[in-house]
Structures are given as C-alpha cells and as structure tokens.
C-alpha cells in the first residue's frame, strides 16, 4: 500500500501545492476543475520525478504556517523602519555593513527559506553562501552593531526553521 502510494505520488507536497495553485489560477471553484487539477497534479510530479532524485524531507506544516505569519508581520514592521531610514537619514550618517552569519542549518531547502526570509525582511539582504555552505553573507542597510543583526537572524528565524525542517 505504502509502495503504491510512493509510486503514484513521489512528491505528495508538490501535488498538494499544484492542486492549490491550479484552483487559485481558476479563480472559481467547480468540481470538474478540481478533478482536472488533481489529475494534472498527479501526472506532473510523476513525470518529472526523474529530475528530482531526492525525496524532500518532511516539514511541519503547522509550524511553517506560524513562521509565515511571523515573517509577514516582520516584513510590515521592518518596512516602516526602512522607509523611515530612507526619508530621514542622510547618506553620510548611514552605516551599511556586511554581516557574516554562521549557519547551523544543513538542509538546502532550509537555507533557501532562511536566505529568502532575510532578503524579504527589510534592512537585511542575503548576498551569498560560502563554498561549503556553512556561512551566509548578509548585507545590512543600517546597523550600529553587526553582531546584533547576526544574533537576531539566528535567534528569530534560524531557530524556528530548525524545528520546521526535520
């Protein structure tokens, strides 16, 4: 049974995502479209499975949802901060800085989400990963204390991501 399930749905989460994207694209819910979406979402992962050799590991969806809410809140708050910096702070008083964040995460998916989060939360921007993938280069728009930025990223986002990606 489990084997048949694995054969039919090599990437269950991808299937779920494709169904949702399909329904959102249709912009109206109807039974026929739902069935068609399910058929497509089963076929596409099945036929592209050759190019996805690794099965993605499990993620905790509930915690992922909470994490998304936290990030959206942070984006809104931090946008106001950056707008304030842009409008009031002259260039001569701006203190941009490179910050190096040592990473504890090893899963590439988790690092991708962390880098995306850092770029989306205004004021910081992820620039590059070290060649072995153990440090992240972050550019901060304005900071007096680069180590505090690094601590914030590790404590606020990385700690949660470690619990999401098993």
């Amino acid at each position, binding site marked *: 049974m489990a084997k048949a399930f694995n054969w039919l749905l090599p990437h269950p989460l991808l299937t779920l995502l494709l169904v949702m994207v399909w329904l959102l694209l249709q912009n109206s819910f109807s039974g026929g479209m739902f069935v068609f979406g399910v058929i497509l979402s089963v076929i596409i992962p099945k036929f592209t499975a050759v190019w996805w050799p690794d099965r993605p590991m499990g993620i905790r969806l509930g915690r992922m949802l909470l994490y998304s809410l936290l990030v959206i809140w942070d984006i809104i708050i931090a946008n106001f901060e950056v707008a304030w910096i*842009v409008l009031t702070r002259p260039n001569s008083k701006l203190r941009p800085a490179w910050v190096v964040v040592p990473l504890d995460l090893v899963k590439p998916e988790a690092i991708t989400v962390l*880098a*995306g989060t850092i770029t989306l939360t205004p004021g910081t921007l*992820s620039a590059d990963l070290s060649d*072995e*993938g153990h440090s992240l280069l972050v550019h901060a728009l304005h900071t007096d204390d680069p180590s505090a930025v690094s601590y914030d990223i590790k404590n606020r986002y990385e700690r949660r991501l470690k619990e999401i990606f098993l």
Partner: protein
Amino acid sequence: MILENIAVYALVLFLLIGSLFSLVGVIGLLKFNDPMTRLHAPTKVGTVGVGAFLVASMINSATFGDGWSMQELLIMIFLFVTAPISANFIAKVHMHSQVGKTPPPPIKDDIWSTLAVPKSDPPEE
C-alpha cells in the same frame, strides 16, 4: 450601502499605502550612493508596496466585481519567491565588481561561493 462606503475608504487607504511605499522605494533608489544600499530599496517596495496594491485589488473585486478573487494571493506568493532571487543575483554581481567595501571572509569556510573559481576553470587573464 454602508458596507460599500467602508470598502471604498479601505480601497483608497490601501492604494495610498501602496503608492507611498513605492515612492519611498524610488526615493531610496535615487538617494543612496552605493549599489548594495540601493538594492535595499526596490526589494522593499516589492513586498509591502505591491502587497497593498494587491489587497486593494481584492477589496475592489469583492465589492464591485464578481466576488472574491484569489489570484492576487498567487501573485503575492510568486513575488515573495522570486524577489529574493533577483536581489541575490544583483548582490553577487556587486561582489564581483569589487566596488565599495569588500565583504569579510566567511567564518566557517574559506571563501564565498560566487568568488570561488574551480581549479579546472582558471580566470581569464
């Protein structure tokens, strides 16, 4: 009727927020004087500015259109997925151009991956 009035005010509010943040993004892009800080401004507009416009679009179609429209959510998701990647590429180009402050070396490894040239592929003289 009252509901429609509230919707109009909400619409105006979100359009105003969106245009304000877009304006701030453009000001930031023009004002800052180094490519890395300039990069900060447009990546920010992409989130709250466009997000507010999309919320306004959803309110509009819910009250004056054909009911709730969910495609805006999809736009927002794709925007959130793609915006960091383009910013990342611009940042890497900046690291190669070596203008301004050079980034510090990584703590745990030897070199940043975009600057690491494999031995089989020597840099052109």
